[in-house]
């Protein structure tokens, strides 16, 4: 199936390269000059497109089983491929949570036809309640290497400590969205000037700051691999920065939408903006940007959390937190591209998350995401591929469209 991609501008973490021809052959993408193929089954003009190694998302959710009205595993797979992701870590928070061999088999069978390579984050504790461990070694035998309780923080420090120790046997990675639920109790949004004006109970930065700091110390004590998910506060970025400078094996990610919105977007009580961690202040956003630039933050994640209409269409304090974020991922990146530049952004969804997962960089790629950063498209109920529509951009004109993805030896065009 040799395919020729003509005049493609390839982006890596260093730069956006000049237009060049690439060849897709034998499950690999190669510069044309490195291949000796002269005849192609197909030639595609890519002169308007940018491309990179296939993207990696470290955090997304489906609703299946249990809440299929939000997202099925099938619809999530379609979304991931259409949004340019070649690999994706799926959180365990279904009903029941993914926590045993049968659950893993169910997930693998349901994702067998995905173009995206699925990576299951199995629950670390039973029912993701933060108490009793799941059968971790048994799950590892099923190929699971990433553990965590997904949207539930592992708030018991003893559990976190023992988990880090236990996972060392097979270099397992612990994913945690670290915050102290008691310091966030009854909170609806970021605690700050806006929450004061809205009379809303706030979630202080402190809830994240103390927990990240504590968990870094626990990681220092135990060793092990700890990955901090969806950081949102300036002080927690500093904690990770310091931990990395001390050589600890910690990594971190941030939700793309934390870089696009702040607490000021909540003034109209729009429940689409209700997320965990909450959208924080402009100062926190600036710290996140700095963290991305200096390498403190390794990855940008979609944090795709679908919620059906009835879970959002209500009073703010009763609405479920969460926002979808896959189809809007590239348009969000386009909005940030002027501030951060494509090479940095692309590194946070390719080499960055791959290193979090312990995947070595390779000279040739088995995946490719091709996108048009200028194409305008209407994001509405018709074009939305998710079963949920909990995103404030629904009804807007967006810029940036994924055109093709090559993964698992297949090329899909959109």
């Amino acid at each position, binding site marked *: 199936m040799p395919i020729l991609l003509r005049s493609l501008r390839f982006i890596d973490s260093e730069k956006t390269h000049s237009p060049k021809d690439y060849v897709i052959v034998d499950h690999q993408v190669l510069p044309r000059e490195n291949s000796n193929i002269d005849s192609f089954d197909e030639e595609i003009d890519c002169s308007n497109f940018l491309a990179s190694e296939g993207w990696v998302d470290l955090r997304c959710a489906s609703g299946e089983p249990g809440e299929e009205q939000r997202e099925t595993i099938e619809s999530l797979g379609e979304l991931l491929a259409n949004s340019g992701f070649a690999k994706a870590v799926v959180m365990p928070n279904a009903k029941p949570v993914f926590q045993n061999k049968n659950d893993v088999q169910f997930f693998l069978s349901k994702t067998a036809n995905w173009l995206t390579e699925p990576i299951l984050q199995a629950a670390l504790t039973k029912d993701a309640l933060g108490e009793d461990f799941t059968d971790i070694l048994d799950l590892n035998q099923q190929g699971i290497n990433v553990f965590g309780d997904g949207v539930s923080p592992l708030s018991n420090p003893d559990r976190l400590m023992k988990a880090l120790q236990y996972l060392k046997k097979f270099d397992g990675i612990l994913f945690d969205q670290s915050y102290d639920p008691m310091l966030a109790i009854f909170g609806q949004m970021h605690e700050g000037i806006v929450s004061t004006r809205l*009379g809303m109970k706030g979630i202080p930065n402190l809830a994240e700051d103390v927990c990240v700091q504590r968990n870094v110390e626990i990681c220092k004590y135990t060793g092990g691999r700890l990955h901090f998910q969806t950081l949102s506060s300036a002080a927690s970025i500093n904690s990770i920065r310091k931990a990395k400078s001390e050589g600890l094996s910690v990594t971190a990610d941030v939700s793309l939408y934390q870089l696009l919105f702040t607490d000021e977007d909540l003034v*109209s*009580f729009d429940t689409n903006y209700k997320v965990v961690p909450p959208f924080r202040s402009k100062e926190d956003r600036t710290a996140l940007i700095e963290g991305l630039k200096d390498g403190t933050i390794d990855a940008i994640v979609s944090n795709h959390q679908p919620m059906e209409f009835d879970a959002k269409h209500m*009073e703010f304090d009763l609405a479920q937190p969460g926002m979808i974020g896959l189809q809007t991922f590239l348009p969000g990146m386009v909005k940030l591209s002027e501030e951060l530049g494509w090479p940095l952004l692309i590194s946070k969804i390719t080499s960055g998350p791959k290193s979090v997962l312990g995947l070595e960089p390779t000279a040739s790629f088995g995946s490719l995401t091709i996108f048009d950063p200028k194409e305008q498209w209407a994001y509405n109920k018709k074009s939305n591929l998710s079963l949920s529509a909990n995103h404030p951009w629904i009804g807007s004109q967006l810029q940036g469209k994924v055109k093709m993805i090559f993964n698992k030896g297949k090329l899909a065009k959109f």
Partner: protein
Amino acid sequence: MSQLSSRHLLGIKDITSDDIQLIFETADNFKEVLNRPIKKVPSLRDITIANIFFENSTRTKLSFELAEKRLSADVVNFSSSNSSVKKGETLIDTVNNILSMKVDMVVMRHSSPGAPHFLSRNIKANIVNAGDGTHEHPTQALLDAFSIREKLGDVAGKKVAIIGDILHSRVALSNIFCLQKLGAEVMVCGPVTLLPKHIDSLGVIVEHDVQCALAWCDVANILRIQLERQQIKYFPSLREYSLYYGVNKKMLDTLDKEIVIMHPGPINRGVELNSDVADSEHSIILHQVENGVAIRMAVLYLLAGVR
């Protein structure tokens, strides 16, 4: 200007000082009406108003109902305890059911901040916020400022201390916005745990000593301890609160000036306010209640004008 800038009254934050002045001038006229032998005017004849209260209320509901009846509106009432309203669909469904009966205006109290804003995006009727959780209670702030204006001649330049449970109070926020829009200086006073951490960002003076607050102010608006909204402990005991944050006559006697005492009610007598102050000549608490009807008449009348 003879019309409000908004078709809803969702909060003081959303209206202008011109709106407030217009409401006051209109309320002046209605107050005169309320003192006539025949206290009713036909201004809102053919207008149907639904009072929808998802939280307990006695005086606010009564005050709105009286205002509506004085304006000759048709009135329907719906009350539901908070425990039976767990989902937003219930709010939407309840209100839609009532609106399908051709209701023109909705007066709503709800425990969720922003509930009237949510409603305003989903229904066509004019909405008056009669209190949304810990967010705003705009008509209370209007009647408070109106009462200060009536007692002291003007609100501009006056020093108003809001004392008590600021964190759980919708009255506090609306009062701060309203008083500042009218040119008053505002202080908040209470235990640190009952003040929002970033309250100073609203441009208010923050004080923790009640005696100092009383010495500073021209008007002390004492707020009720909102025990029903405190899901966790914020101070050791009511006894300690009343000893250190309650206002009594002895404290007022030490001042070298007379200050005005206000309270939005209902009063926890002996907790935040002693009877020797609540019932004293300093207190304008009952004037607030009386002015509440005139203010609510003004708001309903003016909103009907921008329908």
